[in-house]
């Protein structure tokens, strides 16, 4: 009786959702962040609903199975614009973005009221290595460091420390592709000693990021610069959202998202910028580190290169832009802080250009070279640059490392998949 009452009461709580992102699944994330009654959480342990948003490539099935099984009982799974695995029973698939929040909240509520059964586990209930009854004391271990006590081997030091001469155990693990602190879809094999990254090797590149259709249109015909620049600002603002969230500035991250949602040539960035400066984001947050060298910056291109002092911007070759008085903005340091300052400056510049372009009805003139928000698009779309992280990460503290990853737009660009068929 009492339990029933407790469950009824609990069913009124916010739906805690752990998002697992598939290709171009970020739209769902951005929508849910602004929806009341839904709480996006960073760990599956804190969630009651697992949201699979977007098509998951086959090479990420295994990690998805693992995350799926890491939600504590009871939990529900929702598939958004993604084909549920056939062997699962009782699956819910949603395709309309507008119906998603409702469905999540309903799933959470039904789960707690007992009207919906908890999703069943996929993986067999086996430890990573058999251990019970093995070894010296039946704990699976042998001697002091040998064996697999409780199913896993012990950490042994494998590489010398990168900072001081003290070499202790290094911990190797694979992170991602569904870790909220990394770009969607990215996975890396990491070795830490203490909280310092010793080695980083990117295993799965992040999903290509969808470019606004207007950039593709610009390859075919002149398009209004206002439209192009708003799409650019939109792209950058959404990246700002995830970075600010990672930095613990939830409020500011949501304002970035709101700004992106209601973007028009009249939008102003001043409020958000003031807020960031006053909160000490540029002074206090972990933004030192991750400085790009000129060669690396050139390879990556785009805002990250301009933050490192290169003034390459294809827009300056376009007469339409030139008439609007366009000149690339650059920073010099090339580190994480410079990249955020660059991003803010570029958003501001884009909004300014959009205002001017709207007044002058300006259109692009060159079609063979487009500056996308990710970087230059000459013969081919900007390609994946995540292997750059392998050089950049070692030597960074964990927080600095993740802030650096967030500040670098390494994902390739691709055409938007558009609305999936209902």
């Amino acid at each position: 009786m009492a339990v029933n009452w407790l469950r009824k009461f609990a069913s009124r709580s916010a739906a805690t959702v752990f998002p697992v992102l598939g290709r171009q699944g970020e739209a769902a994330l951005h929508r849910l962040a602004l929806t009341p009654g839904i709480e996006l959480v960073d760990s599956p342990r804190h969630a009651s609903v697992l949201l699979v948003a977007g098509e998951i490539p086959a090479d990420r099935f295994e990690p998805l199975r693992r995350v799926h099984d890491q939600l504590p009982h009871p939990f529900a799974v929702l598939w958004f614009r993604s084909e549920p695995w056939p062997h699962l029973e009782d699956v819910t698939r949603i395709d309309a973005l507008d119906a998603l929040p409702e469905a999540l909240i309903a799933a959470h509520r039904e789960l707690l009221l007992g009207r919906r059964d908890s999703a069943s586990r996929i993986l067999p209930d086996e430890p990573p290595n058999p251990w019970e009854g093995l070894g010296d004391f039946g704990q699976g271990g042998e001697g002091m460091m040998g064996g697999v006590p409780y199913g896993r081997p012990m950490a042994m030091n494998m590489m010398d420390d990168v900072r001081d001469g003290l070499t202790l155990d290094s911990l190797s693990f694979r992170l991602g592709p569904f870790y909220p602190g990394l770009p969607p879809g990215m996975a890396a094999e990491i070795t830490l000693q203490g909280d310092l990254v010793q080695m980083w090797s990117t295993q799965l590149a992040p999903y290509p990021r969808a470019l606004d259709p207007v950039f593709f249109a610009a390859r075919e015909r002149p398009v209004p610069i206002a439209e192009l620049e708003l799409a650019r600002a939109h792209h950058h603002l959404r990246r700002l959202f995830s970075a600010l969230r990672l930095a613990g500035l939830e409020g500011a991250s949501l304002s970035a998202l709101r700004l992106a949602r209601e973007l028009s040539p009249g939008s102003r960035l001043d409020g958000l910028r003031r807020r960031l400066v006053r909160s000490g984001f540029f002074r206090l947050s972990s933004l030192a580190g991750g400085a790009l060298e000129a060669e690396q910056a050139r390879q990556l291109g785009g805002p990250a290169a301009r933050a490192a002092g290169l003034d390459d911007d294809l827009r300056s070759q376009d007469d339409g832009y030139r008439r609007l008085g366009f000149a690339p903005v650059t920073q010099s340091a090339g580190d994480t802080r410079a990249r955020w300052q660059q991003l803010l400056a570029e958003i501001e510049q884009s909004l300014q250009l959009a205002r001017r372009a709207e007044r002058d009805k300006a259109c692009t003139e060159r079609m063979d070279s487009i500056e996308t928000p990710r970087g230059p698009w000459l013969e081919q779309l900007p390609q994946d640059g995540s292997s750059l992280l392998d050089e950049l990460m070692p030597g960074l503290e964990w927080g600095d490392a993740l802030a650096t990853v967030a500040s670098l737009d390494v994902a390739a660009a691709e055409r938007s998949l558009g609305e999936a068929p209902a």
Partner: protein
Amino acid sequence: MIVDQLILPLLMVLVTLSVGAYIVAVLDRLMAGAFGAPRGGNVWLAPLTRGAWLLTQHANATEAPDWRAWRLAPALYLALAAIGLAVMPWSASLVATDLVTSVVLWGSVEALATVVIFLHGWSANALLTLIGGYRYVALGLSYILISMFVLIGVALPAESLQFTQVVASQEGLWNVLRQPLGLPLFLIVGLGMTFWGPLDLADSTDLAGGTASEVSGPPRLVWDIARAAMLVAFSGVATTAFLGGWLGPWLPGPLWVIVKMLAVLSVLLLLGRWLPRLAPERCVTLMWVVLLPLSFLALVWAGAVALWE
């Protein structure tokens, strides 16, 4: 006599602990709303429904945790918060534990909290919790000294290490004015100790929840309650040490204490929403190189003022 000295203070502590933790949750939601979080639902009910949800969720386990330490850590943290409230006087006579050295006892609570939070991160035997626990130790060990220096500052004019005497010594002028550096420094320590807002290094988002990333269900509920309760205890001590405790016109003493505690809580929660998270390395340097010398200054100031008076 039993009622006066035991039952009543005991009730006060327990009620403040539970109601205070609830108020912290509500205030935090209100602040979040003011800072742009999507509004919706009942702010007053939300902490309770969330608590109910955590009670129905199953507790998580890891492969080979240190079971006892893992389950004890949240409970111990809660107990430490309770001790913090126990040494805080509600009025000249209404205080649970009026130890001669209650100021030092609070210092011990801060030091022991480091142990407990480290245990919470350590005992799960998972990478992210471990990093969170170690980060907190860096932070926790750095601010202990700052807190001790500013609290010694308030002990100087009181000529005592007893919180009731500390309040009594503020009869003429509250310490917040007499020792202007003390309260700001102490508030920073408070944020650190509950790893709220900018000093949220132990349970941060880049660690997917840090020390709490592997806990779910009831243990997580206790951990959340304990963090909120520690913030309440902290605001109580700040009130006592710097804001004149029960002193104030018109209202009865305990009411004044509550009003001041609410004010301190609001400031803390506001700061928590306003500031970004600091990098651990930067944070340690900041504490030792900037804030600690400032707390020396606060102590010299307090000494000079105490002698001059």
